[in-house]
């Protein structure tokens, strides 16, 4: 059997667009087994916006798994937003994993927002001022938590859900100067080390949908402006 994954990121909901996202999800249960949200669910990361997101996702007929994005952290309300989403039945992953059963097979999802730093050969190093070291260490710590979560994951299909990009391929279209703020190769390195079937991310609104890691794992940028459609659907065939 195959697992059908619907995914979208950067939906940036707020009171002004209340109800519109839910409309676009009509009939999703016929197209997909699970909906994954790749962060930036809000615009300003406020509790009010978090409530809109929770209301739009409440009682969807398929499971919803999400990670937060940088916008969702802006008002320091990420914990409250997470709690609101949990109350609405949404699983929010913060460098953790969850396993769902689809058609009798286990779909394992490792998720977290990820972070920046840049890509191999053109990236920040853990060197110099404490602020620089802290920036790079944040990404390194996240990558390590993903690696451990993937190592421990027992599942038939393995998907990584992120906000920041693990590869450059899916940033094509963004100005190269800002790549270090859009993702980090450390994320891809960790996933390549433990293996996965698919990596989904958002964040890069001007990027492209399709790419792959150096290890050959498929990467899809599902940021809403990139997709131009309500969500992408990716089906993973059984091994």
């Amino acid at each position: 059997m195959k697992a059908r994954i619907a995914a979208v990121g950067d939906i940036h909901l707020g009171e002004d667009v209340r109800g519109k996202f839910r409309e676009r999800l009509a009939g999703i249960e016929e197209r997909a087994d699970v909906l994954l949200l790749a962060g930036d669910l809000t615009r300003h990361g406020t509790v009010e916006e978090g409530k809109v997101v929770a209301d739009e996702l409440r009682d969807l007929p398929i499971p919803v798994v999400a990670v937060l994005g940088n916008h969702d952290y802006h008002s320091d309300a990420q914990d409250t937003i997470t709690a609101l989403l949990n109350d609405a039945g949404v699983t929010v992953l913060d460098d953790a994993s969850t396993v769902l059963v689809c058609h009798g097979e286990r779909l394992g999802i490792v998720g977290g927002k990820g972070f920046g730093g840049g890509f191999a050969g053109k990236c920040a190093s853990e060197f110099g001022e404490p602020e620089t070291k802290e920036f790079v260490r944040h990404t390194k710590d996240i990558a390590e938590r993903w690696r451990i979560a993937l190592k421990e994951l027992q599942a038939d299909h393995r998907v990584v859900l992120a906000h920041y990009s693990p590869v450059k391929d899916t940033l094509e279209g963004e100005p190269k100067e800002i790549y270090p703020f859009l993702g980090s190769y450390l994320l891809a390195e960790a996933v390549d080390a433990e293996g996965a079937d698919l990596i989904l991310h958002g964040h890069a609104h001007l990027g492209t949908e399709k790419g792959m890691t150096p290890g050959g794992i498929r990467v899809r940028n599902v940021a809403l402006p990139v997709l131009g459609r309500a969500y992408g659907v990716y089906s993973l065939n059984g091994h």
Partner: protein
Amino acid sequence: MAHEAPQYVAARVQRALAEGENTHELGIRVDVRGDQLFLRGKVSTEERRTRLAGVAGEAAPELKVRNEITVVEIRDPGEEESL
């Protein structure tokens, strides 16, 4: 201020769009050419498009704002991709 380099004006407007309480829009390209300020990018609603032009105009009142931001049309999910 009369001789502020256009690059600094564009950077100031871009910062206002990214950091402004009512905008927080990071993906807008800002270019200054002569007395014109061009905004390009994609947003989800007409209201957000208009709001961005308003904030840009406040950040650079001496320039004529050319709002070339487009509102994204969201299509149906379409076909699934088999991996």
